[in-house]
């Protein structure tokens, strides 16, 4: 069977184009994916960078107590890697905020939430106990808590940008951990993976963009390109760059960057977004009139 043409490439009316085109601009908030990766426990490197020093060190204790799997598993249904605990602690902390003040004491987040530094033994015991009780219900509780103020559960801007730039935690809290549990955490903390750093840079660019800070976004992207010339997230960076250029009124540069990408990756999932940033916006959505119905045909 031959593939039908897409409406947007063919017969859609102007009004329909506006409707369909609007969907293409939709997407998750910046950092949502990184948060999910952390909560799934598959963002080992990212977590190493993203965790605040306090959270990370607390999480190291958690990991050393063997509670990493609990913390990761509570949200993720998996993930026993040591690095997972870092991200999970961070995410669980937010979740806990949205659920109940008392539930704050989840995994490594407990120590941070209370601003105290209990002895490792005490903290691990507490973590373990609370995690055992609270963690399995987290997912369920989160589902139930979608009615709570979005700020509690969703608020990504409150944390990632500053958290991402937090210095890697000192490894001085790690020694108590058995080597098997400690190794991944320690290495993630001392030496964040390139992907993690790259992700952090992109998150910074997106956050700047979201704050209408085009130059800030472009600066982060320039740093990205300098340090990760052939990084894994090149296409993503380019999408953000095109968006930032468009937002800064640097249309020509936006088109040049976008066209170059489209030429080499015409069917990439990112190509559509770039087209929409460049082409659709210019042709189909005259400024200020995106939804005005066209004259009847």
């Amino acid at each position, binding site marked *: 069977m031959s593939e039908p043409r897409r409406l947007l490439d063919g017969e859609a009316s102007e009004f329909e184009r506006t409707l369909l085109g609007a969907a293409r601009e939709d997407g998750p908030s910046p950092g949502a994916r990184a948060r999910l990766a952390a909560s799934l426990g598959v963002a080992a490197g990212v977590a190493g960078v993203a965790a605040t020093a306090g959270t990370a060190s607390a999480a190291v204790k958690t990991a050393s107590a063997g509670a990493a799997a609990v913390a990761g598993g509570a949200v993720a249904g998996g993930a026993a890697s040591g690095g*997972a605990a870092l991200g999970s602690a961070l995410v669980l902390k937010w979740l806990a905020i949205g659920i109940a003040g008392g539930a704050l004491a989840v995994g490594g987040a407990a120590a941070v939430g209370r601003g105290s530094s209990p002895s490792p033994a005490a903290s691990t015991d507490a973590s373990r106990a609370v995690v055992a009780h609270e963690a399995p219900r987290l997912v369920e509780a989160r589902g139930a808590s979608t009615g709570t103020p979005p700020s509690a559960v969703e608020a990504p801007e409150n944390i990632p940008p500053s958290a991402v730039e937090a210095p890697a935690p000192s490894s001085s809290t790690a020694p108590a951990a058995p080597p098997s549990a400690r190794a991944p955490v320690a290495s993630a903390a001392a030496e964040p993976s390139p992907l993690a750093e790259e992700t952090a840079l992109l998150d910074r660019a997106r956050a700047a963009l979201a704050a209408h800070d085009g130059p800030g976004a472009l600066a982060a992207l320039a740093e990205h390109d300098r340090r990760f010339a052939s990084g894994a997230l090149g296409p993503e960076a380019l999408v953000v760059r095109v968006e930032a250029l468009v937002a800064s009124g640097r249309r020509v540069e936006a088109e040049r960057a976008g066209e170059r990408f489209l030429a080499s990756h015409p069917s990439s999932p990112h190509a559509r977004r770039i087209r929409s940033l460049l082409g659709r916006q210019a042709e189909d959505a005259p400024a200020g009139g995106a939804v005005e119905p066209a004259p009847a045909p």
Partner: protein
Amino acid sequence: MRSSVPALEDLASPRLVAVAGGEAGERESSPDVPLAPVRDPARLRAMLEAHYDLVWRSLRRFGVRAGDVDDAAQQVFLVAARKLDAVEPGAERSFLVGTAMRVASDARRAASRRREVQDDEPLRERRDSSPGPEELADRRRARALLDEVLDAMPLDLRAVFVLFELEELPTAEIAALVGVPVGTAASRLRRAREEFHRIAARMRARAGHAGGAS
């Protein structure tokens, strides 16, 4: 490929219903299921990197409310984490989108049970802060209209329409992940387009009468 998509009964399981609706969650506490380590975290991470946005947008366009999409996306990847071994290499996207369809279906049911009205527009707009405020408002309105059109479609048509027209998946893949023959998918797409044209025309007429698009 089809076999890797979770069967409906998986999604009707108390676990997912609990996640979606906040009910009957006790089974979620069963320690062994959520604690199983992901055997191949690198693969799950790669799936997340490659398809998170697609999953998110699909959920949204399948009718999950903006404020619930992050949670729904989490569910999709939780299912993926649990069933990673059953996902054939190369079929990751189909698996995720197929799962998203079912999660969306559950979430919609749960949402209609909950019926707490929440203003989800601010959340949905977060991504679009680069354009000026007027354009932004227009876009938001356009998206609200699109959702209205999609809401008027039955889910089987809606899914095919969204995946083909908005996510630009090939019809063969859509057919596989929906679990129907390609011919059926094609005819659903035809019907979905008719619906789309019809509803959009009606909407536009209405907007015309009102002197604006809203």
